[in-house]
């Protein structure tokens, strides 16, 4: 039952986040739904800019540190969902669930993000202003 609820929540998250990028271009032209990934690291930079926000995290990988790019929703959509450009700060540790870029670069489309204290970050992009279908 727990797993069923979790799966449903993930599905809702994917659907809503997928919407945000689908406005600009097809999700599948950039990301691979068959390649989910979870990453954890400290934010090194945040770009609150159109058409979609990007932020970057340092992820420990077998003794090295790899900087990953994380793509989120459109700034206006996130703003209306209550997020601000200082909702996350450089140094905040965040865990990301998302999908890998198809071109093999260190880039992930964010579906869910959780800060170290358990707060969600830059999610819930389907709002009153983007109600679908």
């Amino acid at each position: 039952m727990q797993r069923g609820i979790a799966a449903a929540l993930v599905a809702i998250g994917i659907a809503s986040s997928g919407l945000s990028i689908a406005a600009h271009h097809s999700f599948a032209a950039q990301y691979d739904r068959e390649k989910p990934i979870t990453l954890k690291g400290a934010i090194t930079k945040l770009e609150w800019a159109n058409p979609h926000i990007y932020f970057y995290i340092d992820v420990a990988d077998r003794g090295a540190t790899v900087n990953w790019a994380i793509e989120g929703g459109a700034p206006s959509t996130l703003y209306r969902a209550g997020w601000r450009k200082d909702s996350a700060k450089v140094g905040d540790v965040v865990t990301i669930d998302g999908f890998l870029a198809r071109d093999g670069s260190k880039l992930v489309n964010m579906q869910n993000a959780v800060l170290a204290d358990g707060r969600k970050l830059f999610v819930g992009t389907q709002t009153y202003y983007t109600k679908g279908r």
Partner: protein
Amino acid sequence: MEALRLFARGVVATAVLMLAVPAAAQPPAPPDMSGFWINQYTPDLSAALGKQPPFTEFGAERWRTVDTAKDPTGFCLPVGPSRGFTAPFPFLLVQHEKMIAIMFEYQSIWRAIYMDGRTHPDDLADYPYFMGHSLGRWEGDTLVVDTQGIDERSWLDTAGHEHSAKLRLTERFRKTGPDTIQWSVTYDDPVYFTRPWSIERTFTRGKPGDRVLPYTCNENNKDVEHLRPNQPNLKYKHVPEPPAAKKPPGEY
């Protein structure tokens, strides 16, 4: 004297006429559609239509082979006149007797709908607009907009429905309540479709004080370097619509 009497009778008759029909002679004022409106997000028009549009052979082959990595909006090219109303971003409508302006948050782009009775320019085909050239008129309480000269590089939706330079849009905007507009759009493009087809969506008024937010697409469009060819419809099989049944003579 007789002439004077006739003149007086004429004056009285005219006055009576003017008194009798003032209300009937004046068309009702058109409804005010100004404001901040929220789209009904529709990334795939066929979902709203319930099936694929009636493709020509050419249109079907374009749909089968479309590469969504080539979506013009992915490169920040303008969204096109109808897709602006199906994207997940609001718009402002400013209404004037001689012109209606649509200002989309998405791409911070606009449409001018000329209401002054002009015609489309003769050289429109040579100088198309990504957002088309739009003429509007009121039919009762309905705003009817004819749009032509739409640059064929724009797409109709995110799913990858395309169109030719011959696309002609007919849109109908009708207020169905103080806070809702019913929008119907007819796509007429003989290159891509065998007949005109239509969908209907609803715009919902925003909250008082709502504002459009910045959307400058090229500000940080990093996506473009990561796009890779993506053809999701290669298995699509085109089934042409059966020809419309011919009515027997005498039936209408």
